[in-house]
């Protein structure tokens, strides 16, 4: 079977780090972070993966008024020895897809460390600092990483009736090939899941910046955080129930499903209006 990968040019890297973000993540976390990396580091497209077989190509989806088509593109920033994969997550043939990603990582880019980005929906308020969790491919990878600012303890087992995430699958496949990696999970307040969460993006980008010495500036992101906080403050003053619900979350109280739904709806509406 022919490889679904199309490599347009040799990225020319003696070794590199690969950051993977999925477009369909909650709060567009993976898509936003990888887009920022590509923009700031002037990443250059060098490869992609043909969607055939991995996605149900029965038409196109329309999102935010624009027709979308599944996309899996690799970018390189030679100076930073960084490779970025910004991709839709496949619907079928996962193993073949991940094998293709790792073939490019291993053979074209000599990847020495894999960073996988993911969002974790949380029931906390947006005023609570975002938390970062990490899962490593091995004890050595964990000890080398010396993770600061990451939640220290983490044991987890997929609950019955659920399935592991694509990031866990990719981390496992990388581990099988001896490529070390880390899957990073940042918390997102549930009522921002359908929007964007600039604070969560900053949390992840700060860690990548430190680890990979990327020299990223955060002025624009800080501006976005201020803007979003302002919009949320306005929503609280405009809707007393939104203020009450967020206040209860800030006090670590639980909301009912109906209250959560109401909060989500109103916040999304306010953020859309202010966009």
């Amino acid at each position, binding site marked *: 079977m022919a490889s679904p990968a199309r490599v347009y040019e040799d990225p020319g890297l003696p070794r590199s780090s690969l950051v993977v973000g999925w477009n369909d993540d909650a709060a567009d976390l993976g898509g936003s972070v990888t887009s920022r990396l590509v923009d700031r580091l002037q990443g250059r497209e060098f490869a992609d993966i043909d969607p055939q077989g991995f996605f149900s190509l029965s038409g196109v989806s329309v999102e935010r008024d624009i027709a979308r088509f599944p996309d899996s593109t690799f970018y390189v920033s030679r100076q930073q020895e960084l490779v970025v994969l910004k991709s839709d997550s496949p619907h079928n043939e996962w193993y073949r897809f991940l094998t293709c990603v790792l073939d490019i990582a291993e053979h074209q880019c000599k990847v020495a460390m894999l960073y996988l980005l993911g969002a974790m929906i949380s029931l906390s308020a947006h005023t609570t600092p975002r938390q970062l969790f990490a899962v490593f491919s091995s004890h050595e990878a964990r000890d080398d990483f010396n993770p600061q600012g990451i939640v220290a303890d983490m044991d987890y*087992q997929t609950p019955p009736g659920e399935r592991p995430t694509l990031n866990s699958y990719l981390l496992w496949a990388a581990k099988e090939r001896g490529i070390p990696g880390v899957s990073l999970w940042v918390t997102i307040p549930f009522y921002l899941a359908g929007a964007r969460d600039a604070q969560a993006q900053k949390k992840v980008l700060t860690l990548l910046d430190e680890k990979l010495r990327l020299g990223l500036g955060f002025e624009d992101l800080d501006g976005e955080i201020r803007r979003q906080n302002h919009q949320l403050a306005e929503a609280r003053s405009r809707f007393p129930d939104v203020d009450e619900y967020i206040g209860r979350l800030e006090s670590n109280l639980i909301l009912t499903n109906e209250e959560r739904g109401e909060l989500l709806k109103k916040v999304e509406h306010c953020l859309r209006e202010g966009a």
Partner: protein
Amino acid sequence: MGIRLYQEPPLENPVLVASWPGIGNIGVIAVDSLRDTLGAEEFGELEPYDFFYPKRALIRDRVLECLEFPGSKLHFARTAAEDVILFIGEEQPTEGGRLYAEGRKAYHMANLVLDVADRFRCRRIYTSGAAVALTHHTAESRVWAVPNSAALIREVSAYENTVLMTDIEGRSGQGQITGMNGLLLGAARRRGVDAICLMGEIPVYLQGLPLSYPRASRSVVRVLSRALNVEAGLEKLDEMDRRVQQNIEEFYRQIPGEIRMQLDRLKHTEHDEPSEAGPITEEEEQRIVEGVQRFLKKEGGGA
């Protein structure tokens, strides 16, 4: 990538019995029960990566310890009468969100199982699944048998408590065996291997419930143990059946009286003689199924 054998057991023209999950998990429970009775030993598996998404991740102290995939395991047993290979699939390889296997992956898996059969020179293949039937849960399940060649009809007809499609009212010998349990039969025919699918009856009104139906598995095991000339212990299945029947009775009592009355008529369905109340018509069957489905939707669950 494909078959991984941990050992090559010395088997003499074994019979291969395969099953995948389906309605009431009838086939899988039957084959698993046989595995237990025969003390069959695991000797290989089909590699899962081409077929399945992982089912479980285990993370300890921030390290991904393992990722588990649905199993497709091979076991063998040597008995005085027959050597037997048992294949048990934990999931059907589906595509595009479908419930049952179909398409490239399914056909590939069927052919891998047949490669195993070929390698060990299997003389016969059995698969097992469910037959959704106009029967009552208090009745003993019959076994519907479908061979993949006309030469097997005579043999199959002699099996106890077994019927052919032509024996089923209104079917005229026609039907459909969905998913892997059927596909393997077809793929075996293409390779000229004799295969028979044994389907235990499950009442039509239970088909949508998330429960196992060991009563039908027990009927399948009885047929298989005769066909393989082995002694099958049925105690565990009897016990399972008792427990499941209690749950079904509880569920049954909650069904609205009007629907239950219709279902009660199935108690009197005799397969050899016309029933007093007359046979259930196709329209009535449709009404029963719809009624139970409406009830389940309202209750938001099952037994």
